[in-house]
């Protein structure tokens, strides 16, 4: 089976648009070739348009009363492969393709850069890397005017600087970070967590692993504990819908994992983290980070988190002030776990200490609640057995 897209044809005499008068078919209908499918009105006449193929209507576009330009995809048929006609001969009056959707117009079609030979020569002569140029033409094709925004390599300029265009993932990151910092009154909260017991559990579990199995990091433990804790702090597992002025509380905890990739920061999402066990969480985090790092993560896998965890591992430092991943209201950062001298029962002793550096949206999370949530998280992490005991 294949799809056949029927575009509004030029109904003669240079028609540029037609008004839909009545649909004779709807999605799901089976039609036979030449059956009347839609009545349209041009500025010259009302025309009954026949079906060009036999098949099942998958979708129709436009309501009676809508004016649609010639070339607009009107109706999509599902047809058996053998019945699919060859691609129609070029329609004399087919207008230029509609402008590409915003957000997608990079001049790359799959892995191929789309540009006319003339523009490729112009780019080559000007030292412009077409891969860095956004195409504004049909299908993201790079037009001559787009070259003006192209990157010139350092060698081209007298200054020893390199200009890197802010595009793609980097542009999205930049916009989202700016928006978060501009609209969210962040407050940071840093607490130290004694992870000595967690470390011994982690070492024990890793020691029992068969060789190729990857070792556990702190991250799945923190995600596990966080999912448990948020059951008691629903105000931190919230998305703010600014357009409607509504806070949307989520029963499920979808944890975003801030991940460094060659393209920049991405946040793949562990869905319903509260329903996963430790090993499942570890595997899922690993799977998602790998996919994000290799550029395979789907849009689905990169959206929908309700709270985010960020960890720089060995680069974690002492404290940090993470930026909230809008429209969430909280982000939890892990700092580096190191052995430190601490005082316990009046004596100095060596313990493994890891700081948690978190930020909250002060509009919706009060300091008291944020502190209580982090303390609850600390409690679970310092006594790891409690992570595996359901809430009483």
């Amino acid at each position, binding site marked *: 089976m294949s799809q056949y897209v029927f575009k509004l044809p030029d109904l003669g005499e240079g028609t540029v648009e037609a008004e839909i008068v009545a649909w004779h078919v709807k999605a799901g209908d089976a039609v036979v070739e030449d059956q009347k499918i839609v009545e349209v009105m041009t500025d010259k006449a009302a025309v009954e348009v026949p079906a060009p193929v036999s098949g099942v209507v998958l979708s129709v576009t436009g309501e009676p009363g809508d004016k649609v330009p010639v070339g607009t995809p009107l109706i999509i048929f599902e047809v058996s492969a053998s019945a699919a006609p060859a691609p129609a001969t070029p329609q*004399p009056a087919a207008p*230029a393709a509609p402008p590409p959707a915003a957000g997608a117009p990079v001049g790359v079609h799959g892995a191929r850069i789309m540009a*006319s030979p*003339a523009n490729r020569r112009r780019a080559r002569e000007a030292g412009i890397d077409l891969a860095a140029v956004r195409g504004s033409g049909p299908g993201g094709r790079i*037009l001559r005017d787009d070259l003006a925004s192209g990157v010139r390599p350092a060698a081209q300029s007298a200054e020893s600087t390199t200009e890197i265009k802010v595009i793609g993932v980097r542009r999205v990151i930049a916009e989202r970070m700016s928006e978060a910092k501009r609209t969210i009154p962040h407050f940071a909260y840093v607490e130290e967590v004694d992870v000595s017991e967690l470390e011994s559990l982690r070492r024990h579990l890793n020691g029992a692993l068969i060789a190729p199995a990857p070792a556990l990091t702190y991250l799945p433990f923190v995600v596990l504990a966080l999912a448990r804790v948020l059951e008691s702090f629903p105000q931190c597992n919230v998305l703010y819908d600014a357009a409607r002025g509504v806070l949307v509380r989520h029963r499920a905890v979808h944890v975003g994992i801030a991940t460094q990739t060659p393209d920049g920061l991405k946040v793949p999402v562990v869905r319903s983290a509260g329903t996963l066990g430790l090993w499942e969480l570890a595997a899922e985090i690993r799977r998602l980070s790998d996919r994000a790092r290799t550029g395979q993560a789907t849009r689905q896998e990169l959206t929908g988190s309700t709270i985010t965890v960020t960890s720089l591992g060995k680069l974690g430092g002492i404290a940090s002030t993470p930026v909230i991943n809008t429209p969430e209201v909280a982000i939890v950062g892990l700092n580096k776990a190191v052995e430190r001298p601490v005082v316990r029962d009046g004596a100095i002793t060596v313990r493994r200490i890891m700081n948690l550096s978190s930020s909250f949206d002060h509009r919706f999370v009060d300091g008291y609640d944020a502190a209580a949530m982090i303390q609850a998280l600390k409690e679970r992490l310092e006594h790891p057995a409690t992570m595996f005991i359901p809430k009483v």
Partner: protein
Amino acid sequence: MAQMNMVQALNSAMDIMLGRDPSVVLMGEDIGYFGGVFRTTEGLQRKYGEHRVLDTPIAEGGIVGAAIGMAVNGLRPVAEIQFADYIYPGFDQIVSELARLRYRSAGDFTAPVTIRTPCGGGIRGGQTHSQSPEAMFTHVSGLKVVMPSNPHDAKGLLITAIEDDDPVIFFEPKRLYNGPFDGDPNKPAVPWSTHPKGEVPEGHYTVPLGRADIVRAGAQLSIITYGTMVYVAQAAAAALELDAEIIDLRSLVPLDVDAICSSVKKTGRCVVAHEATRLSGFGAEIAAIVQEECFWHLEAPIQRAAGWDTPYPHAFEWEYFPGQARLAAAIRAAMEPA
């Protein structure tokens, strides 16, 4: 200067050559006593005699074969094939003998034969009086292939062809005999007497082979064409209000590659138009040359407007003929944003 239509201009060319060169002879079906079905040779037998202007049997293989024999023996025959649609019985003689004579004899013999033949549609001639087989002859090494689009060029090119020591296939777009034609059969016919290219010098002059005519200089796209389509192209580009450069090739072999390529390098966009069927038409050769020579200057894919890949129809002449609408579609495609 005299006003002539294309028939008169061709007649004048042959008249002048018969007068200048005693080795020139005309031969063909009904060209002598009758003066030719299109009147192209009218009065010439009366003026030069039956030994200079010969009526032949209806046998195109014989016409071409006899012309070759006469040429080898020092004459300069101008053979008429009444319609290009009838040329195929002579095709073997043309390909196997005429085209190769100089090569096969290592230059000892040449074949200064001109074969004139009316071509193209637009006259309700159906499949046997409307064909445009020029591409077949461009494929045969050793032949020169010419197609004028107006009386001035027709006379100058025919004189050049007759004076050429090698064989020339000279196609005459019959729809243009009496006037330019923009592809719209419903418009009143336009006579050459109102067209600047209908001004034809009375005496001897030549138009060189291999030199295209830039009919209209323009900056936005190049339309490469010849024959009847020259006028269709002008009308289509004008209707679209485009600043098109229109190139009339005039001769396909030799081909004015420089004119084509300097134009396409200037405009970056190219449409090729001819009446003949699209598949393996001469437009394919031009498109290939353009992409070889001008690839890095192309803003959009090269487009072709041509006859459909069917025999020339009896009833649907204007559905078949590549008129302004088909050319406009090709032009629009070539004007894709870049």
